């Protein structure tokens, strides 16, 4: 029973990873790509790690999986936020259909560069 729940969690994680990578390839902008990639891939990898913990039990590999899960949850949101902030400050353009940009009212952008 425990192993069955673990394998179902691993399969859900694989599905979320594939959907996140399709989002990385298909979406038109850096910020939208970061949205798709970071949310989907973080949740998918955490699901894979928790499923591995359920399959392995309290052995060496399972406890390391829990440790890695906590570390990924703590750091991945931070790294996505840092990439978005530095891209905005470096002046990377938005997608044409963007409606509102509230961050540039407080922090005005430099001139637009495209590389």
């Amino acid at each position: 029973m425990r192993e069955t729940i673990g394998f179902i969690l691993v399969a859900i994680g694989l599905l979320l990873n594939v959907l996140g990578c399709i989002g990385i390839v298909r979406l038109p902008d850096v910020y939208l790509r970061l949205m798709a990639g970071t949310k989907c891939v973080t949740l998918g990898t955490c699901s894979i790690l928790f499923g591995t913990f359920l399959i392995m039990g309290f052995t060496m590999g399972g406890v390391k999986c829990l440790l890695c899960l906590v570390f990924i949850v703590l750091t991945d949101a931070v790294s996505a936020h840092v990439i978005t902030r530095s891209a905005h400050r470096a002046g990377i353009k938005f997608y044409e259909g963007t409606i509102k940009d509230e961050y540039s009212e407080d922090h005005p952008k430099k001139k637009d560069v495209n590389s």
Partner: protein
Amino acid sequence: MKLLQWFLSAVLLISIAALIIFRPLPILFYPKLPHIPFVGRAIYILVLSCLLCLYRVVRGPTSADRIMAIDIMGIMIIGMCAVLTIATGRGWYMDVGIAWALQSFITVLALSKHLEGRNLDA
């Protein structure tokens, strides 16, 4: 021309699905352990996702795209280490995963500081 593109991509997708369903990846040094068919298919799916990320690395228009794609590919490789832990039962694959997570986080911080234009100290 558009019809040809649709046809070729449909053939590619169907052949990838057939590869995943009918020929799971053999794991060479541990052929007798349980859970091998599931793990072979899971490793196929993760490797294809990493190839999609590498497409974004090669053809990203800006440098923030490249940093983002490298970060996400690192997280997916941690998932691959976990799947190999299921296959073999050895614990040291997750050591590789933890080290990769630390290294990827510090690399992303340093590269985005460099992209922002400040020095690396402050």
